[in-house]
């Protein structure tokens, strides 16, 4: 089985597809009119389906050049951060990682504070920090790849997209070191720098 969501490739929200190998039986969640081979009863959302198909076509046509462009920008972001900000680490493989994502640990500071400052500067990212999750415990994924709790708290995920420009990356690289420096000044662990 394989499922995919339309909005992940810039299609309209609310459409998705299911690929099902013949012979696999699944139980429908929605019953009624017997639409879609009795698997999902309910009137079809035609505009979203058409939009998803178009988005899939565009993604397929452009995937090579888009990946290349994103990889270049992502690498610029990663290199810029690792070079200019001490005690930072890339989480994940530098070559085999997805072209649109960079997850980075900023030691000695807590992710939510960093996120908030970025937010105020007009930059939107996400974090594995406990303070941002309802459970208040650190990201289990980062813990599983060997981060300690504190580093997991201080990790930020930057996502790039079709409309991310080189200027955007330059802006992040200009603003980020200042923010990290300021927050580290307040941290009790800064003397480990």
């Amino acid at each position, binding site marked *: 089985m394989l499922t995919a969501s339309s909005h992940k490739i810039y299609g309209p929200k609310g459409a998705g597809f299911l690929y099902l190998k013949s012979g696999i039986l699944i139980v429908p969640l929605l019953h009624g009119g017997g639409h879609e081979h009795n698997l999902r009863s309910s009137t079809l959302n035609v505009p979203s389906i058409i939009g998803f198909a178009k988005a899939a076509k565009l993604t397929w046509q452009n995937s090579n050049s888009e990946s290349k462009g994103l990889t270049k920008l992502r690498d610029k972001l990663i290199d810029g951060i690792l070079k200019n900000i001490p005690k930072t680490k890339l989480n994940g493989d530098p070559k085999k990682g997805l072209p649109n994502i960079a997850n980075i640990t900023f030691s000695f500071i807590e992710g939510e504070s960093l996120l908030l400052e970025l937010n105020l500067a007009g930059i939107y990212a*996400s974090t594995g920090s406990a303070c941002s999750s309802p459970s208040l415990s650190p990201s289990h994924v980062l813990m599983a790849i060997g981060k300690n709790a504190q580093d997991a708290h201080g990790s930020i995920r930057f996502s790039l997209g079709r409309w991310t420009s080189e200027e955007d990356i330059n802006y992040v690289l200009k603003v980020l070191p200042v923010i990290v420096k300021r927050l580290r000044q307040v941290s009790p662990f800064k003397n480990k720098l």
Partner: protein
Amino acid sequence: MTNIKSYSKKVLEHFRNPHNFGKIKNPSGVGEVGNIICGDVMFLYIKVLKNKKKEEIIKDIKFETYGCAAAIATSSAITDLVKGKPVQEALKINKEDILKTLRGLPPIKIHCSLLAVDALKEAIYDFFIKRRGKIPKNLISIHEKNKKERDIVEEKRKKWAKA
């Protein structure tokens, strides 16, 4: 993430421009507390001097905090409340006082204001120990509680490290 809009202007002010952060050389007392819930850590340093009336006054106070925006803002706010106050009065400061100066905190962040209060009590406890004076009973019990919590945080960290 806690939405930026859920923080008051006062919280953001303190977070972006914290007062009295850093260390004090030769402090009279140091308080270190860890938060059981989210792993935040706060250090509070106080310098106590006697005034002409022989009252013990907290002349200087500084903090170092590892934590979210609310943790940093509450740290900054408590230093403002405490600076220049007699030790006995500083002991009366509670989380409501902090919440009042910060114009409130989002419900999920209320525990951060307690962290600051506990750190202050710890610093004053440490000061009492160092000057070998009598320590109020309730301060001893607060210290015991903080110590226990610090151990739990330590345990939690070890558990997280293993998981």
